[in-house]
């Protein structure tokens, strides 16, 4: 045989996700902070608001987090050890990213912003919103059993962008041939 014995795909053909930077629409408000538990949140927002935010984050994870039939598919997207298993109503099981806590802040107009935060590849803190994933920080010291410390994303250097891609715009077509 000169054809492949098997062709298996681990990323394609499933709900695949793309990382998007903060700054696009859907990014958390400026004052948003990460809270791993209600206890740490309540000093800022009070018990009731924090319970609401936690419940909203859990609900959002259950309803919208990408689901994978195999653990390795999930780990290919979110990193090894960053997925948890859940049961479907029918008794089957699937994998989804692990909930680490939530981002909470105040939106324009006075509404509260609350979104779940997962742990992604390379210990990134990943927040979904509006169909995109945002890198909101990083988890340090990710040992089993100990809660990793959250480090918010900051500009670590002045970086210029847009230095590649202009020729494709000029020709307005594919790069491949």
């Amino acid at each position, binding site marked *: 045989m000169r*054809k*492949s014995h098997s062709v298996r795909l681990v*990323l*394609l053909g499933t709900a695949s996700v793309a990382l998007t*930077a903060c700054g696009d629409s859907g990014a958390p408000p400026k004052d948003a902070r990460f809270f791993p538990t209600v206890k740490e949140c309540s000093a800022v927002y009070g018990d009731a608001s924090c319970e609401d935010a936690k419940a909203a984050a859990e609900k959002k994870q259950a309803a919208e987090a990408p689901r994978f039939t195999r653990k390795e598919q999930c780990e290919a997207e979110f990193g090894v050890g960053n997925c948890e298993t859940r049961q479907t109503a029918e008794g089957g099981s699937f994998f989804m990213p692990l909930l680490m806590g939530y981002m909470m802040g105040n939106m324009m107009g006075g509404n509260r912003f609350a979104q779940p935060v997962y742990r992604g590849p*390379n210990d990134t803190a990943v927040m979904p919103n509006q169909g995109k994933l945002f890198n909101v920080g990083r988890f340090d010291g990710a040992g089993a059993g100990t809660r990793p410390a959250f480090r918010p994303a900051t500009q670590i250097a002045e970086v*210029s962008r847009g230095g590649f891609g202009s020729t494709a715009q000029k020709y307005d077509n594919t790069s491949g*041939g």
Partner: protein
Amino acid sequence: MERQLVTPRPDWRAHVERELGFAFHTIGGAPYWDETACYRFTAAEIDQIEDATNELEQMALALVERVVTTGDAAYERLRIPRIAWSAIEGSWNAGEKNLYGRFDLAYGGNGPPKLLEYNADTPTALFEAAVVQWDWLQALWPERDQFNSIHERLIEAWKSFGINEPIYFAAVKDHVEDNGTVEYLRDTAVQAGLTTERIAIEHIGWDGERFRDLDNRPIGVLFKLYPWEWLVGEPFGAHLLTGVAKVIEPAWKMVLSNKAALALLWEMAPGHPNLLPAFLEPDRIEGRVVRKPIYSREGANVQVLDGTRLVAETEGGYGAEGYVYQAYVAMPEFSGNYPVIGSWVIASQAAGIGIREDATAITRDTSRFIPHYFE
């Protein structure tokens, strides 16, 4: 080699979308993946294509060696900008590995395959060849064979790169086909045990010392589905040429990814059965000649000339760097269709074919992908 009509699987659209994640089977409302037909080859024909492909790849590698040894004069003939010369030489002398390439061959089952051109830097139609046609054959005739071990070869090739940091896979933002191809390659890299990241080519950052991703993490290894000749002409091009990041394909592919290389191949191996006569000057070929821009994509700006008479032409915005003149070869025709064999090399070894078919003799980005098998 013959063209057979086949009944498409009734649910093929939903199937390829859901099971394979194949998002661009239809482009601009027109079919791109076309399973109303297929090509049947004999084993001897496949052997002929495989042998020709391996021989062409060895000639291509010999040409790079020759160009690097010759130096300035050769780069000038290839219209490669001076800024890139030392990066080409450095990457070649360091033995930087290459992943893939696609030879486009004129072949109809009689006579040797003839090289039309070599897509050495940014070949596409990879996912269709490696996965979609394989899946099609498994569904219809699992006992039959296909010249296609592309998928397995890609996974093996990634392992041989010896990369132990994240590879950033980059393509033009929002380009569906290019991102589909890149996502497929990333899939094979993940299966090879590598760590991968995605970034749009437009989002790559530069902090004065290193390339940075959107999270400002350094980019150490970059897979780019974006032509080298474009990169070197853009604002960050000079940074890339310093070698601060490892790039796949390597810089030496610039020697092969421009069509002037066709003339240098002919010069190196005149009369080779798998080559067509090709020159950098007009008037060297008697009879019909095909004029191709040295840098172009997807069959743009090609002219077929008979003496000074224009026989056929495609549009586009290319040609500023000059042209290569290649002897015209009558493309094999099957019931009004003109197939071109895209013959893949993975890590410089022949690994399979994908066929694109057009209703005209110049294959363009509107051509359809047709599956194949052999027995």
